[in-house]
């Protein structure tokens, strides 16, 4: 501390001779900076102008087209649309994004790790006899939705099933288990009636005659 007071006279001393670097005696140095440099410092010199020419123009157009094109490709993953305030009846008929967050495009699953495949709950629909002979095994689910239009559904089923030809057995087994789980629900959904509301009369008369207060009609 004392040293600084004693030896610090004059301009700040440094380990190397300032003369050698070129700061002469008594010369004014620019003031030291006390704050971070401004966010947009004024430019002292004009920047070099941009290149122009046919090549540059073409690449510019290409760049903008590419941006636009990429936005419309299925690779552009859009975040899920925010839920509207009330569920509307028409929602069922509007084809929204891919079902259950599945992918729009079909990658070659042989090249990808198995865990990346998104299993979509498939709604079982009446399959036409045409398809049955082709697909005896319970095929794994993929990319289906409760789209009411039969044609599109049929077409999609064909797409799905034709892709699934040659799937590994294990996957099928795994999926069979899953399917067994939702079998009941699916059976329920085949009809328009909600099973729980349906009273099939088995319990009729099973009540014991405990409460004789109320007459049985």
């Amino acid at each position: 501390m004392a040293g600084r007071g004693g030896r610090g006279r004059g301009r700040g001393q440094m380990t190397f001779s300032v003369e050698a670097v070129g700061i002469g005696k008594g010369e004014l140095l620019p003031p030291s900076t006390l704050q971070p440099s401004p966010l947009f410092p004024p430019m002292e010199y004009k920047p070099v102008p941009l290149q122009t020419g046919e090549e540059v123009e073409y690449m510019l157009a290409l760049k903008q087209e590419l941006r636009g094109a990429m936005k419309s490709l299925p690779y552009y993953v859009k975040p899920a649309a925010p839920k509207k305030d009330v569920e509307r009846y028409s929602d069922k008929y509007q084809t929204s994004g891919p079902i259950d967050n599945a992918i729009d495009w079909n990658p070659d699953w042989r090249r990808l790790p198995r865990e990346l495949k998104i299993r979509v709950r498939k709604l079982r629909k009446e399959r036409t006899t045409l398809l049955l002979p082709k697909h005896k095994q319970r095929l794994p689910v993929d990319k289906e939705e409760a789209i009411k239009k039969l044609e599109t559904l049929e077409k999609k089923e064909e797409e799905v099933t034709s892709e699934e030809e040659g799937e590994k057995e294990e996957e099928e087994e795994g999926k069979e288990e899953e399917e067994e789980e939702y079998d009941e629900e699916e059976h329920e959904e085949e009809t328009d009636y909600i099973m729980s509301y349906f009273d099939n009369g088995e319990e009729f008369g099973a009540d014991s005659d405990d409460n004789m207060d109320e007459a049985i009609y």
Partner: protein
Amino acid sequence: MTQAEIKLCSLLLQEHFGEIVEKIGTHLIKTGSQPLRVIAKDTGMLLDQVKKALCVLIQHNLVTYQLQKRGIVEYEALCSRVLRILRYPRYIYTAKTLYSDMGELIVEELLLNGKMTMSAVVQKVADRLTETMEDGKTMDYAEVSNTFVRLADTHFIQRCPVAPEISKASAAPPPPAPTLAVNEKDMYLVPTLNLIGKGKRRRSFDDEEKSEHKAKRQKQDADSKEPPPDDGIYWQANIDRFHQYFRDQAIVSAVANRMDQTSSEIVRTMLRMSEITTSSNAPYTQPLSSNEIFRSLPAGYNIVKQILDQYLTLLADDPTHMAPAMAGQAGSLPEKYAGATSQESLSWSLSVNPGIVAGACTSSISTRPLHLWQQQRWNPSSRRELCVSCCVAAPSRFGSRCARIFRLVLRKKHLEQKQVEDFAMIPAKEAKDILYKMLSENFVSLQEIPKTPDHAPSRTFYLYTVNTLSSARMLLHRCYKSVANLIERRQYETKENKRLLEKSQRVEAILASMQATGAEEGQLQEIEEMITAPERQQLESLKRNVNKIDASENQVDETIFVLESYIESTMKKL
């Protein structure tokens, strides 16, 4: 990965693939190799979303996966590959210059989709070309296939690593992730496909109903057919080859700047001859004899052999270190020439040296008057190029005088303060000022040379020097930052005027539909007037700004390429 790189990567991913992919991609770049569940937990996103994003990233060669022990698959992002997205327009334009529209579309499809089979590419490109042709004409698959084959022959596209064959009979359960093997031999082998067909035009409204039934039937037919003959063989664009091409271009233009057109043509020929024979990372090309060069010169060039030899001598002797000639060994010449004649032959090689331009031309006694020419591959650090980029960066910040001093120090390697003032012919005060500014920005650095062992400041030399490698790195970092800034600014501008843009799009749509149904001039006028004059001006200026920003991004990317290649080749040498 530096912060600037990560920021730029995330901006690029967001622009091209959306928010979800961006989050996952950025997370992977920051943290390295991770399994699926950890990614989902760390980013807080749904598992399905993560799966989707990973599929997209893997498809585009931006993320690779590896099967670790215990069946866990880990995913790793390739930051440098993400940065290449910036260069896609340049690749596509190059393909256009070399192979015209067909090549351009093929490369574009491959870049947009990551990987595709040949049949899919050919089909899509033919369809696209058919759209642009006149009514009634269609593009034949054969032509597109030809261009595809040519692209593969010159290595601009290559096969993706192959998934292992899955035999149904194997008892062992398949691994959770396939191990893709790179097949070096077949990398550019085009499968013999019999692609017969023509491009299809998108049907207009009238034909739709008729074709609906047909389409349905076709679909059923397609399903019942076997998978396409080249199923499983995917192609991708070969980025390295494009880079090699850019490097060659830069070398040629540097030579043209330094000397004249003819010498640049000669260099171009030499490079073209060794395009496929040498790998893109080799520091030197194969030695070429001057006879071969003479034969391969483009047809229109009528120069006599002697003049060619003179040019070659000039190139080899050039002191700017574009082409130091290197010693050739007599022993390297094939045996059968030994003893034919004992003429002196000079072996020349052009090499571009990263920092030092050593020009050593030696003559070795060989038996044949073979003139061997080699050329070093990489160029960006053809000092010239590096100087150019640094000198562009320096003066735009500090003025042309600064550029002069910088070039001076670069050339002379080490200079004292006084010497700088003398050589540059700039008044002392100004020179000092400039040097300090450059020092503070790390363009130049000080080198101490002590006279006495105690390093006393008064008895030490202080020399200014340019450390090219570190300056290059610093500039590169700056470039990444500037591109990120440019993209942000562009997004900001677009967001500010979003309402206006949407309005103008709607008006255009209305106009188009009205024109299609044949509206009157008056009505069209009315619709056009929906956009007021000041709004129109605003739109104009927005468009101008966005174009400017885009063009600057492209230009900065060129500088990034030069700097990156320099750093890469210098590191390889070390």
